């Protein structure tokens, strides 16, 4: 049965898009058909991780929302671009990176019902096993819709006081919206911290399972979104942890 998973964080800069791309790649390596949709219309970016450039985007999510194309016409099969042994497939639905088109969405708004129809149409037409939604940080109309329709929600947070408070709000909202499976991923944890202790503290604070605790990584920083970490570093401890997270989030 197909599943919809949202990857969300209350604040920006948590590594949400990076985590979404890595989890998607791991799912596709298992042989699954994965859709990745960038609903961060105001500040899109996940296309960079998949090596998709502005000139490659014949269509985008924006075009679909303006009635210029079907949602599947805005989906790009990026599997081959990743140059890795991937048994499944990854389809990316990018948001437009053109400044004028971002401004137009902000100015005119869009049909939220059409966005929801698009999620369901993608799952059906591309025969997806999983649709991963990369959201805009914080709580707004798009993110609330994404959370509401998700079977699985992963909330990314850093060990930071601002993240702690915002994550609490997000967890409360997700509980109110009856998300069937919700887990936390703690990212960019300083090397001096005891990872098990951080996991235990966060689980106790939010009464929510932690799917992964990811230490700060110089390799990740140096990669700088120029590729997908788990493909570049298949034997790295972070890759192992992300594999475990996938098996918890989307068994």
């Amino acid at each position, binding site marked *: 049965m197909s599943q919809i998973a949202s990857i969300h964080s209350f604040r920006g800069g948590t590594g949400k898009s990076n985590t979404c791309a890595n989890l998607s790649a791991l799912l596709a390596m298992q042989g699954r058909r994965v859709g990745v949709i960038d609903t961060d219309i105001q500040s899109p970016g996940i296309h960079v991780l998949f090596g998709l450039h502005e000139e490659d985007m014949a269509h985008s999510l924006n075009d679909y929302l303006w009635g210029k194309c079907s949602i599947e016409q805005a989906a790009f099969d990026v599997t081959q671009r990743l140059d890795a042994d991937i048994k499944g497939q990854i389809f990316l639905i990018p948001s437009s990176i053109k400044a004028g088109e971002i401004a137009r969405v902000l100015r005119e*708004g*869009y*049909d939220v*019902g059409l966005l929801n129809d698009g999620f369901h149409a993608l799952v059906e037409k591309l025969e997806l096993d999983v649709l991963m939604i990369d959201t805009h940080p914080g709580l707004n*109309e*798009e993110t609330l819709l994404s959370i*509401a329709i998700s079977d699985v929600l992963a909330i990314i947070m850093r060990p930071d006081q601002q993240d702690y408070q915002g994550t609490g709000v997000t967890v409360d*909202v997700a509980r109110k*919206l009856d998300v069937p499976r919700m887990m936390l991923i703690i990212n960019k944890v300083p090397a001096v911290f005891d990872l098990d202790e951080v996991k235990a503290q966060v689980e106790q604070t939010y009464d929510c399972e932690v799917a992964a605790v990811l230490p700060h990584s110089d390799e990740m920083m140096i990669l700088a979104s120029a590729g997908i970490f788990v493909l570049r570093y298949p034997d790295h401890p972070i890759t192992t942890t992300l594999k475990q997270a996938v098996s918890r989030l989307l068994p």
Partner: protein
Amino acid sequence: MGGLFDRLQSEIETRQQVEGITPADLLDISPELRRIINMILRQGEMSLTEIVFQLDMRPSEVKGLLDTLIAKGYLRVFEVKGEQRYKTFLARKRGREVPLNIWEALGSKVG
């Protein structure tokens, strides 16, 4: 002819009737209505039989809740092969209401 307040009130009421539910409204409605809306949102569209099957409630109770949601403008009903199906009617996301000259200035910069 009514006063300005009456006309504004009427416009607000009309807008609320036709505009559908916003994702933020989901947080404000009662848990039993929210449960149904969420379920239909996740499925895309559902029939009464499918909804009753998912909930531990009598069909008449479910029908009452569906009628409430339709009256609020949050659900729409349509027919497929003689069967009534329900779909969440989501409100359009409005554009940002900022002074027009901001968009003009931005447009001239970014095309």
